């Protein structure tokens, strides 16, 4: 395989200005993440310390193997909801290593409203367990949650993918032989009582852990019975009398050590067979990505330069390089595994769409996972293209992509608009993991166009009410709509709503995709031998 030849000049003024811009974006990202992970009101931290409780990240540090990475997912969930008062949606989830085994960790953050479940918390829990089901990842639950946040109950209870889905997923995991260990570090009431109980192994911390369908106040209100939390459903009650839990630990540290011991007894899973070679670091420095990504969504860049800073040895075998040049398809190796890469270098035309479709078939037949590098405004529009069958060819691409058996990973590098998002494996198409760069934008159509359309509608409606608008007012309305649109299509909004699995630092892309790929290979995927249609 030949190495990609980079045309980037790190000394050019363009590079320098992009780099400044992106480093600033990344600094902001890191700061937001830091706040979300570690900034809590003193009063809440005090309360936890008094109860002898560790903070959620302290628990995770004790849980994971020293000297190993932890890929935290959706750190900035709920950053634009609930007044920003529920960082990370009150829950930490991520992939890490415990005693040499890959696990998916889901940990309540009891420093935020006692770990109560907000609608986005529930959405994050459902997404996390969905990840476990789709990738066959064993789970470790660190349970310390007060239960549903009542004022928002109507947004987290009744629907198909709301709270109940979490428990349903746990049951599905169990039947698939995907192990779950729970450590109950706080009170786990009502629905929350099922989380540890549905796990294969349940450990409770004495004096802190509590599992009950109704807590003491509810019991008192319902039957008049006076009973303490410990007597009702504490560690000793459940590990010696009812059998609802399997172990009682004296303190959090012992509980975490027990979790590690249990996970250490799990066998190492056999990974799905994908062609593998010795891993090599990229030839080009991933940090150069800061100088490659433009400071404006309308500016273009060469996706090949991005690929060069992700894959092993920066080597890439491009498929059909002279055809459909607005899409890039090719093979590369990521941490030793062979992957297929599909990226955008412009709008999708019939030929680029067809190239992608042909390539995806090859990948599917040959058991090559696919990474989608999105930077797409959409498919080309216009008479020539409609007559050329652009809609039909777009549909073909969608059809093949949706039905792929190989694992798919998606990265939003810049723009992701309309049908382009669909074809390039957006969220709805079940990529195993989907990540965004801080500069990325996602909406049903490009901002300029959308804002213009919306403004026109607004203005016309106002004019119908016989309000004459000055040019200035028109301008203001337009700006306002643009601003709002911009915010709602930004990465922070998207990650807040859990439309992705997290915003990542572009320079970390290789590591993130590497871990995601490794995690996805825990589930065997179907062999699909069939002839390749030269679309």
């Amino acid at each position, binding site marked *: 395989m030949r190495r990609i030849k980079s045309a980037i000049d790190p000394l050019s003024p363009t590079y320098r200005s992009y780099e400044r811009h992106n480093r600033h974006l990344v600094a902001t990202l890191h700061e937001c993440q830091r706040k979300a992970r570690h900034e809590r009101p003193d009063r809440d931290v005090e309360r936890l310390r008094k109860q002898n409780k560790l903070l959620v990240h302290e628990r995770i540090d004790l849980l994971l*193997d*020293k*000297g*190993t*990475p*932890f*890929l*935290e997912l959706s*750190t900035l969930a709920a950053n634009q909801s609930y007044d920003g008062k529920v960082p990370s949606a009150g829950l930490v989830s991520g992939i890490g*290593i415990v*005693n*040499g085994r*890959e696990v998916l960790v889901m940990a309540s953050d009891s420093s935020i409203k006692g770990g109560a479940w907000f609608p986005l918390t529930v959405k994050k829990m459902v997404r996390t367990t969905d990840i476990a089901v789709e990738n066959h990842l064993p789970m470790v639950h660190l349970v310390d949650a007060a239960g549903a946040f009542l004022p928002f109950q109507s947004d987290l209870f009744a629907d198909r993918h709301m709270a109940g889905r979490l428990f349903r997923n746990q049951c599905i995991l169990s039947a698939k032989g995907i192990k779950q260990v729970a450590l109950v570090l706080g009170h786990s009431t009502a629905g929350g009582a099922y989380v540890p109980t549905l796990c294969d192994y349940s450990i409770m911390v004495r004096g802190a852990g509590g599992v009950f369908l109704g807590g003491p106040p509810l019991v008192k209100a319902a039957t008049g019975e006076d009973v303490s939390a410990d007597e009702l459903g504490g560690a000793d009650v459940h590990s010696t009398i009812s059998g609802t839990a399997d172990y009682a630990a004296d303190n959090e540290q012992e509980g975490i050590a027990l979790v590690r011991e249990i996970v*250490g007894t799990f066998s*190492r899973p056999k990974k799905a067979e994908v062609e593998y070679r010795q*891993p090599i670091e990229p030839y080009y420095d991933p940090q150069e990505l800061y100088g490659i990504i433009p400071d404006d969504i309308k500016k273009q860049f060469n996706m090949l330069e991005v690929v060069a800073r992700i894959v092993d040895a920066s080597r890439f075998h491009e498929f059909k390089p002279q055809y459909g040049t607005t899409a890039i398809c090719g093979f590369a190796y990521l*941490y*030793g595994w062979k992957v297929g890469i599909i990226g955008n270098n412009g709008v999708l035309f019939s030929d680029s769409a067809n190239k992608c479709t042909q390539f995806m078939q090859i990948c599917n037949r040959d058991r090559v996972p696919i990474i989608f590098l999105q930077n797409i405004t959409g498919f080309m529009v216009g008479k020539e293209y409609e007559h050329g069958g652009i809609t039909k060819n777009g549909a073909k691409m969608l059809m093949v992509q949706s039905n792929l058996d190989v694992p798919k990973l998606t990265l939003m590098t810049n723009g992701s608009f309309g049908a382009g998002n669909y074809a390039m494996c957006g969220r709805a198409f079940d990529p195993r993991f989907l990540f965004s760069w801080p500069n990325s934008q996602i909406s049903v159509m490009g901002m300029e166009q959308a804002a213009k359309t919306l403004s026109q509608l607004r203005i016309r409606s106002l004019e119908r009410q016989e309000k004459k608008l000055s040019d200035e007012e028109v301008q203001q309305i337009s700006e306002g709509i643009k601003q709002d649109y911009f915010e709602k299509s930004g990465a922070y909004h998207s990650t807040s709503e859990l439309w992705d699995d*997290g915003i*990542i*630092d572009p320079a*970390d892309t290789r*590591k*993130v995709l*590497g*871990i995601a790929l*490794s995690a996805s290979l825990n589930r065997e995927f179907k062999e699909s031998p069939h002839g390749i249609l030269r679309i």
Partner: protein
Amino acid sequence: MNKIKKVMVANRGEIASRILRTLDHMGIASVIVYHAADAGSPAVKGASEIVEIDGPTPVAAYLDMDQIIAACKATDADAVHPGFGFLAENPEFARRLEHEGIKFIGPSPENLELMGNKVKARSFCMNNNFPLAPSVAEVSTGDHFAEQARKIGFPLLIKAAAGGGGKGMQIVRDLVDLEPAIQIAKTAALRAFGDDTVYAERYEEKPRHIEVQVLADEFGNVVHLGERECSIQRRFQKIIEESPAPRLEADLRERICTKAVEIAIRAGYHNAGTVEFLLAPDGDFFFLEMNTRIQVEHPVTEMVTGIDLVEMQIRVAQGEPLPFNQNQVQTSGHAIELRIYAEDPQNDFLPTTGQLLSYSIPVGSNVRVDDGFIEGMKVTSAFDPMLAKLIIHGKTRNEAIERACKAITDTLILGITTNVDFLARIISHPAFAAGQIHTGFITKYKDDLNPTALTKEQRNLLLAAAALTSREFMNPEFDAMEPYASIGNWRN
């Protein structure tokens, strides 16, 4: 003369091995009793004939006279060597053996009754005007004892009447500790000797413990084989002994040894025994007790006189006269014995248990090792924690100390905490070299005898060595796989 044909060794560990060695040497058949706990010991493995005994505890087995006598009869043993401890000073045992026509290799039952019971022995000395340690209380059962003990004044010692070796001995410095000390001493005495009678005695600070080895045949010949210094003690048990006693004027030595012989003669003593004295700093010496058995530290006497004491015991028991008179007893050079115990000097000398993963004590032409263990054996809490005796001889005391330092440094015992390094620090202490020895030695130099603290680098080297050798660390089962191992410690 009644030649002994077969000796039953009614003991265990290093003394049993040592006795078997002499029997082998003399061409006398031997048989040994053993409890299952000792099945792997060198004595049992090397014996030509063995008989298993049992009991509610391993110690109880070796105290079971019925079983031992039955074993003798079953194997046609016509003599019993009781070693030390267990039944060695039990007059009833000696009597029963006599009754059965089996020779007890040791003093007569009468000797045992008189001297074996420490209180009777003291009365005997008092009546014969032998010098005694001041202020003794008569033993009694009941409340009076505590009252009388209190009258002796503090500090005082509560000791077992039925046996020695410091077992169960309690030092009481305060009235409030008296009652509990008496309880503990009685319980301990009952366990060790089957008799809970105790007596109290004033405790002298800083005396020297000098004992004299005597040997008497059945023809009235009594000799002494020199004295032993046994002042290096912890918990009232000797851990280092030597012969001759350092810094002892010839005249005083002569007087002490002669007094010992006098006592033995007056008591009508037969066979081997040891008269223990307390030597006060001012040169006065007092009778402490007489040990009516062969003692743990007998090898130091053997190494300076060249006489095999066990052999002498057997000859006397066979009715032979002593083959030498007092003038013919020559001593040459200096011997030091180091008792290697399975205990933790840093934790109040509490006994330790474990498996002897490495066990290597160097022997040489001037280094004798009396051993009860071999590598791989387990050390349990069933018996006394003594592992082995390391006895070194030198032409002078300094040479003996030098050789002892080398021998103890070359001793390697891994798998259990022992006092090996502690012994090394004692004998290399300048006060030891200067012969400034008394029973308070270990307490006095407590701080000097602490191990040197480790530097941080040394500590880290140990930690690294342990980590790299242990399967707890080097278990590939728990290694992170790729890409995690390459990525290392990273958070997004």
